[in-house]
């Protein structure tokens, strides 16, 4: 029902059904070449759906406060002595959000590096003993979660000596 494929002559016959001649087509194509769709033209603002939403009373705000998407807010958290817990909290519990990106950026500013194999953040505790193009070796602090007892647990930082951080795992 789609009809036969017109042979290649009819297609380039000028003004047959609104067709143009080749030089016009080439001209328009060249103009379009400088207005290519950009990756962002296909991207949509991600609507964040919490993976493990904490049940809260209806009186609590049901949507996130806009300030969590404000870079200045995270720079403030990163700079002040609030420590890094909030940054790590946002990184792990607000995944695929802009604030996760902002928190990660602040952690990097404090020279934390994300290790893709161990899925955690490392920070040099001192200058590495060995450093090559492919890896560095030394003593690191890494961000961890420890359970001392049922009551006593929380996010903590541990020391790891003789650790090799291969750059192929650096996110």
């Amino acid at each position: 029902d789609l009809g036969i494929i017109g042979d290649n002559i009819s297609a380039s016959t000028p003004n047959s059904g609104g067709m143009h001649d080749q030089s016009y087509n080439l001209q328009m194509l060249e103009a379009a070449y400088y207005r290519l769709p950009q990756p962002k033209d296909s991207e949509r603002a991600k609507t964040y759906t919490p993976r493990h939403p904490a049940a809260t009373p209806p009186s609590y705000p049901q949507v996130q406060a806009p300030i969590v998407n404000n870079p200045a807010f995270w720079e403030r958290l990163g700079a002040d002595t609030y420590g890094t817990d909030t940054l790590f909290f946002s990184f792990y519990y607000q995944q695929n959000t802009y604030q996760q990106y902002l928190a990660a950026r602040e952690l990097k500013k404090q020279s934390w590096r994300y290790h893709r194999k161990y899925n955690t953040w490392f920070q040099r505790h001192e200058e590495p003993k060995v450093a090559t193009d492919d890896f560095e070796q030394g003593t690191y602090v890494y961000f961890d979660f420890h359970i001392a007892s049922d009551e006593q647990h929380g996010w903590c930082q541990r020391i790891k000596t003789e650790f090799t951080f291969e750059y192929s795992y650096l996110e």
Partner: protein
Amino acid sequence: LGLDLTTLGLNLNSSETLHKKFSSPWSDEPVRGEPEFNVPGCYY
């Protein structure tokens, strides 16, 4: 002599379908799905 078609960014030997990650005819990068930073089990 044509192009080396393995250099167009498509994994032609993939056992998976390519179209799911096909980002665009102009890019030789597959669609970057959301990076999964899996929280290590012990953190829950």
